[in-house]
C-alpha cells in the first residue's frame, strides 16, 4: 500500500492520490489550492466593488449586484479563503512541529477539507443559479428572510457544509496537539505556531456550534416553514444577531491567533533570537482566546441592549487590548538587538506590527459604546476590520506562504519577486484603507452602492480604488512568482532558511510521507536550535528504528461530502411554490423532484458513513527495512 513519493506517476493517479489522501502534507496542499482559488475570487469581487465606488454616481454595478458582491466578498474571504489558508499552514507544520507522524484523525482531516471544498463550490454556484446571497456576510435575519430567490439559501447551506468541515478540523487539531506530542515536548516547549493552533482549535470547538445552530434555524425558517426569526409569527430576529456574533467574534480570533503564531516563528527565526517572553506570549494567547467569548455584543451596541449590557461588553472588549499589547511588545523585544535578516517573510512580519496596531487602536475606539454610535455602519468600521484582517491575517498568510513554501513544495519562492509583491501590497493596502477611516468620520455609510457628487467623498474613494489596484498587482506578481518557481523546480535541502529553530526544519526535504523515521526527543524550547547549539545539529531519536502504523487512503470523505452537496440542492428547492413557504420563494414554480434529491443526497452520506463504521480499515505498517532504505538513500544524496 505504501507509495514512495519519488516514483513517477501519471496525471490520473496523482488526481486519485489527492482525492483519497489522508496525509496531512497533501491535505495542506489541497487547502492551499482551494483557499488560494477562493482568495483570488474574493479579490476579484473586491476589485469590482472598488471600481464601482471609484467615482460618484457610478453604474458599473447595479445596486442589487453590488449587494451580492459585498456579501460574497466578505463570506468568501472569511470562510473560504482566510480560514482554509490558515488550515493549510497548520496542516503543513503542526504535526511536524510536535513530532507526530500525522494528525490524530487522518480520515477526518480529509473529510474536513472535502466538506469545505464542496461547501465553497455550492456557495459560489449561486452566481450561475439565480443570484448570489445579498444580505451581507452577517446575513441578519429580518433582511435574509425577506431576500427573494435562493441567494440566502446558498449562503445558509454552503456555510453549513463547510462549517461542519471546519468544526471537524478544529476537533482534530486540538486532539492532535493534546495527545500526540513527541517525548520531551511539554506544553511550555511547544512552538508558538502550535500553541496558537491549539487555542484557535479550541475556539472553533466552542464557537462553531452557535453558528451551526443559527444557520440551522435560518435553514428551517427559509426552507421548512418554521418561525424562529419571523417576527409576525412570534419569532425574534435579535436571536440571530446574538448567535451570529457569539460565533463571529471568536471567529476573528480563530483567524488572528494562527497569524500571530506564524509571525512569532518568523520573528524568532530571522532575528536569530529566542522569542522574547515566551511564557507571557502563551499566557496572552490563552487569555485572548478566553476573552474572545465574552465580548460578542460589542458588535450590537446600537441594537438597544441597554446601558448596563453595553457597559459590561465595552469594558470586556477593552480588556482584550492588554494581552494583545503584551504580544506586540514581546515581538518588538524579540527583534530588538537581534541579528535581523530582511527576507520576504520578515518584511511582512515587520510591516505587520504597525499595521495591526493601527487596526487594534481603532478597535479600542469602537469599544467605547457611546462613541460607537457615531462609527457604527460607517466606513470607519470597514477601515478597522480591514486593518486587522488584511494587516494581520493576510500579511501572515503571505508571509507564511514564503516561509513555509520549502516545507510544502521543496523549492524556494523567488526573493526579489517576493519583495516586489510585498512593497506593492503594503503600499496598496495602506492607500486603500487608511483613507477609509476618514471617509467614515466624514459620514460615508458602508454597504452603499454609490454616493452623490459634491459630498467630499470623490478624491478619497479614488485614492482607495488606486490602492486596491496596487494590491491586485501584488497578487499577480505573486502568482507569476509561484508559476516560475514551480516550473524551475530547483530543489532545496534541509533547513533552507538556515536558521530554522523548530522541529519542522530538522526533517529532510521532501518530507518523507511518514514524517519521522524515528520520533525525535525534544530537549527544550526551539528543539532544533537546542541541538544546533548544544548537540551535533541533529535531533536525537526517542525510539529505536522499528515498524510503525500508518492509515490507509480513502475515497469515502469525497463521497460523504458529495452526498451533502446533492442534499443541499434538494433542501434549497423544497419550499418553492409551497403554500406555507416564506414570501421570498412561495411564488416560484414547485419542484416535485426536490424531496427525492434531498433524500438521495442524505442516503449517499449515511451509506458511506455506514461503510466507514462497519468495514474495518486497519491501516498498514511501514517496515523497518523501508525506512532504512530511505535513510541510506538520504545519506547518499547528502554526500
Amino acid at each position, binding site marked *: 500500500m505504501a507509495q514512495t513519493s519519488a516514483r513517477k506517476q501519471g496525471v490520473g493517479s496523482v488526481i486519485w492520490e489527492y482525492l483519497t489522501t489522508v496525509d496531512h502534507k497533501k491535505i495542506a496542499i489541497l487547502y492551499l489550492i482551494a483557499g488560494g482559488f477562493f482568495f483570488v475570487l474574493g479579490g476579484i469581487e473586491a476589485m469590482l466593488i472598488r471600481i464601482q465606488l471609484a467615482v460618484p454616481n457610478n453604474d458599473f454595478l447595479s445596486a442589487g449586484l453590488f449587494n451580492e458582491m459585498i456579501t460574497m466578498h466578505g463570506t468568501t474571504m472569511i470562510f473560504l479563503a482566510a480560514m482554509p489558508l490558515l488550515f493549510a499552514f497548520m496542516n503543513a507544520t503542526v504535526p511536524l512541529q510536535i513530532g507526530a507522524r500525522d494528525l490524530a484523525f487522518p480520515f477526518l482531516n480529509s473529510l474536513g477539507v472535502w466538506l469545505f471544498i464542496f461547501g465553497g463550490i455550492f456557495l459560489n454556484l449561486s452566481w450561475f443559479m439565480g443570484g448570489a446571497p445579498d444580505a451581507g456576510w452577517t446575513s441578519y435575519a429580518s433582511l435574509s428572510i425577506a431576500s427573494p430567490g435562493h441567494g440566502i439559501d446558498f449562503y445558509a447551506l454552503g456555510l453549513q457544509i463547510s462549517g461542519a468541515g471546519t468544526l471537524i478540523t478544529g476537533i482534530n487539531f486540538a486532539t492532535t496537539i493534546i495527545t500526540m506530542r513527541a517525548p520531551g515536548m511539554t506544553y511550555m516547549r511547544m512552538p508558538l505556531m502550535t500553541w496558537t493552533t491549539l487555542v484557535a482549535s*479550541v475556539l472553533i470547538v466552542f464557537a462553531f456550534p452557535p453558528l451551526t445552530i443559527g444557520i440551522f434555524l435560518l435553514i428551517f425558517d427559509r426552507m421548512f416553514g418554521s418561525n424562529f426569526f419571523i417576527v409576525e409569527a412570534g419569532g425574534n430576529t435579535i436571536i440571530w444577531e*446574538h448567535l451570529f456574533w457569539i460565533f463571529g467574534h471568536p471567529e476573528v480570533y480563530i483567524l488572528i491567533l494562527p497569524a500571530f503564531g506564524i509571525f512569532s516563528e518568523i520573528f524568532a527565526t530571522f532575528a536569530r533570537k529566542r522569542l522574547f517572553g515566551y511564557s507571557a506570549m502563551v499566557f496572552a494567547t490563552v487569555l485572548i482566546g478566553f476573552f474572545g*467569548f*465574552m465580548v460578542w455584543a460589542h458588535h450590537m451596541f446600537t441594537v438597544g*441592549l441597554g446601558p448596563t449590557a453595553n457597559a459590561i461588553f465595552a469594558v470586556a472588549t477593552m480588556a482584550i487590548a492588554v494581552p494583545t499589547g503584551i504580544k506586540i511588545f514581546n515581538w518588538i523585544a524579540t527583534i530588538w538587538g537581534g541579528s535581523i535578516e530582511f527576507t520576504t517573510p520578515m518584511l511582512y512580519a515587520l510591516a505587520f506590527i504597525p499595521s495591526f496596531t493601527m487596526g487594534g487602536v481603532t478597535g479600542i475606539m469602537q469599544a467605547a459604546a457611546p462613541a460607537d454610535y457615531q462609527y457604527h455602519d460607517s466606513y470607519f468600521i470597514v477601515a478597522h476590520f480591514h486593518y486587522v484582517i488584511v494587516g494581520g491575517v493576510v500579511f501572515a498568510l503571505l508571509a507564511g506562504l514564503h516561509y513555509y513554501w520549502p516545507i510544502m513544495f521543496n523549492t524556494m519562492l523567488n526573493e526579489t519577486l517576493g519583495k516586489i509583491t510585498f512593497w506593492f501590497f503594503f503600499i496598496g493596502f495602506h492607500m486603500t484603507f487608511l483613507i477609509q477611516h476618514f471617509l467614515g468620520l466624514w459620514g460615508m455609510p458602508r454597504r452603499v452602492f454609490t454616493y452623490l457628487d459634491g459630498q467630499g467623498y470623490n478624491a478619497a474613494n479614488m485614492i482607495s480604488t488606486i490602492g486596491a489596484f496596487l494590491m491586485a498587482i501584488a497578487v499577480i506578481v505573486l502568482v507569476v512568482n509561484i508559476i516560475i518557481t514551480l516550473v524551475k523546480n530547483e530543489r532545496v535541502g534541509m533547513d533552507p532558511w538556515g536558521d530554522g529553530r523548530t522541529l519542522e526544519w530538522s526533517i529532510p526535504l521532501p518530507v518523507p510521507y511518514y514524517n519521522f523515521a524515528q520520533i525525535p526527543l525534544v530537549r527544550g524550547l526551539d528543539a532544533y536550535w537546542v541541538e544546533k547549539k548544544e548537540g551535533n545539529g541533529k535531533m536525537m531519536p526517542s525510539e529505536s528504528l522499528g515498524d510503525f502504523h500508518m492509515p490507509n487512503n480513502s475515497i469515502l470523505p469525497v463521497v460523504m461530502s458529495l452526498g451533502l452537496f446533492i442534499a443541499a440542492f434538494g433542501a434549497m428547492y423544497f419550499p418553492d411554490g409551497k403554500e406555507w413557504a416564506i414570501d421570498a420563494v412561495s411564488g416560484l414554480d414547485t419542484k416535485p423532484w426536490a424531496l427525492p434529491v434531498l433524500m438521495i443526497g442524505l442516503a449517499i452520506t449515511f451509506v458511506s458513513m455506514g461503510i466507514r463504521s462497519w468495514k474495518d480499515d*486497519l491501516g498498514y505498517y511501514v517496515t523497518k527495512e523501508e525506512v532504512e532504505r530511505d535513510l541510506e538513500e538520504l545519506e547518499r544524496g547528502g554526500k
Partner: protein
Amino acid sequence: MAELNQEPMTKAQLEYLRRQRTREMRQQLVSFGLMIFLTFIAFGLAGMEIIPAQFTIPIVLGFAFIQVILQFYYFMHMKDNGHQFAKLFMLTGFYFALAFCVTFVYIVWIGAPVN
C-alpha cells in the same frame, strides 16, 4: 490489509487488569446504589410532603447536583487520570453556556414572558 500488531499480555498484566476492573465495578455499583437511594429520598420528600416545599426544592436540587458529580466522575470516568483537558473543556463550556443563557434571558427579552 494489515492486521494490528498487538503484544499478548503477560500473566501479571492480566492479573493487574482484572483487579483494576473488579475495583472499578465495585465503585460503579456503590455509586449506582447511592444514586438510586438519593432518587428515592427525593421522590419521597416531594410525594409525602413531610417538610414544606421551600425546603424540599433546595434539597432536591442539592441531590441532583450530587448525582451529576457522581455521573461525571464514576460513570463517565472523569476521576481517572488524563482527563484534565476534558475537565477544563467542560468547565469552560459550562461557563460559556451559562453566560449565553444569562444574556438571552436578560437582554434578548426571551425572559419577558417569564416575568
